[in-house]
């Protein structure tokens, strides 16, 4: 009986977390340096950061977004989730920005380790990597993306 109660309690505690993880399961996670004072960010704000419409964190530190290359599936998923647009539409947006002289896109990295290196080298940087990529022993943290 005692074992049954304990088992039920464990299930009750774990089950919501399992459902939450399943619900929020994306192929990527958004990461920043540990010195960035942000734990969560709204989708709209994140989109504006990556479109370079928002330039500074709340504490005045400059934001350096870093993208993955077009061929990465994490990029496709990020673009759909956050910008609500296809990667090709975002690329076209940046081409207009470049060739009207208004701005240049965030750097694009091929591998997750390049993204993580970039974030560690640039205070205020933000990027995204595959969920399976380890950030252990790095000065990097995951931030939660919330629906607006």
């Amino acid at each position, binding site marked *: 009986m005692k074992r049954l109660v304990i088992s039920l309690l464990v299930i009750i505690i774990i089950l919501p977390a399992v459902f939450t993880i399943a619900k929020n399961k994306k192929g990527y996670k958004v990461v920043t340096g540990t010195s960035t004072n942000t734990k969560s960010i709204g989708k*709209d704000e994140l989109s*504006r950061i990556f479109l370079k*419409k928002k*330039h500074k964190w709340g504490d005045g530190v*400059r934001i*350096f977004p870093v993208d993955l290359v*077009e061929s990465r599936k994490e990029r496709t998923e990020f673009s759909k989730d956050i910008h609500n647009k*296809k*990667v*090709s539409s975002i*690329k*076209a947006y940046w*081409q*207009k920005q*470049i*060739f*009207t*002289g208004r701005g*240049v896109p965030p*750097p694009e990295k091929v591998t997750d380790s390049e993204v993580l290196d970039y974030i560690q*080298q*640039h*205070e205020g940087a933000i990027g995204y990597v595959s969920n399976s990529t380890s950030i252990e022993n790095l000065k990097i943290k995951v931030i939660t993306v919330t629906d607006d």
Partner: protein
Amino acid sequence: MILHWSKKKSITGNKATPYLRSIILLFVFYLPITGVSQTKLNVHGYLTQAFAISDGHQILGIPSTGTSDYRTLALQFRFDLDEASNFVIQLSHKKTGKSPLAVLEKDIALDWAFFQHKFSNQYSIKVGKIQIPFGIYNEVRDVGVLLPFYGLPYAPYGEGGYMSETVDGLSITFMSEDFNPWNFEFSIYAGHWSWSEWFNTKNVFSGALEQQVGIAQIEKGVGGQLVLNTPVDGLRLIAAGQFGRVVDGLSFSENGILGPKNFYDGLLAIDADFEKYFFRSEFLFLALDKTDVQVNAGYAQAGYYFSESFSLNIQGEMFRVNYLTLPPILSKITGKSSFSFDFDIDYAIGFKYNFSSNYTLKLEGHWNKGYLVEEIALSPFQEKAAETLYSILSLSTSF
């Protein structure tokens, strides 16, 4: 064939050399990169190479024998001095086959050279040789990967004629906060720019074709544009206008058919770009002070995206000149003082295939009726418009 020049030319290609030397010096003397700052210099570019052929008349530089001397290219150097300030130089190269305006083409021309400062997220100023914000396409005229067809609609963008890509001057831009569903961008600018003109005439004695090319100068030009982004994602409305004094060139010199004149123009545009299709339309009205001469020009363009890569595009345009003053001899014969005609009508259909965001192949066909033909002297006062079919196959890329 004899080629005549008007006296004043504002070719700025030679001015590119000192800018390029500056760029070389930037490269030669290594720019320090600190551990926290991003690289300050960005280099981008685009290239479109085309093969074009017409069925009979030569039009827009496209002869009936075809030409691959048809290309646009640019190289842009953007240097971010700090968060708020940057300096941009764009060099360009354009080849338009056998176009009469090809004599004005420098192999490498200075497209833009400006300094920009952002006072805030809303206000910014640009000084130098800057793009004129005018309509949907004026600032991206030659960026092949962004255009549905090889070139812009002649009505209203011309081909170097009667509209300029840049102004030597100053612009101020205000942008509303973009989290407002109805957000807008307003720009005003002032300075000097130029139009290019060409005419074909027949030598009165020999009957030989004489091609005249000239550059009119717009002095004390002022303009503005309002871009309104609607709550419908992808739909925006544009209103723009310009005012200035046009002098020199073929039509606006003291001895020209029109003489120096004040001009004003206005443009309205709708740009609807959705996931599966797009629709764009622009209408230009241009008038000259103290004359009845008016230009009405406009186009409509639509496209359907069969997939992310493949689209079918169609376009119709019209350029109409109203109340153009007749030469005295014709005025006497006809009993009229002015004349209205359709200078250009063009219908186009094209296919666009995107290998990726940066590589695009286009195939398009145009049916044109008007007075843009280049190998004969066609007088709108006396002769009917010429019909021409032409095709363009182009590959565009950017980086």
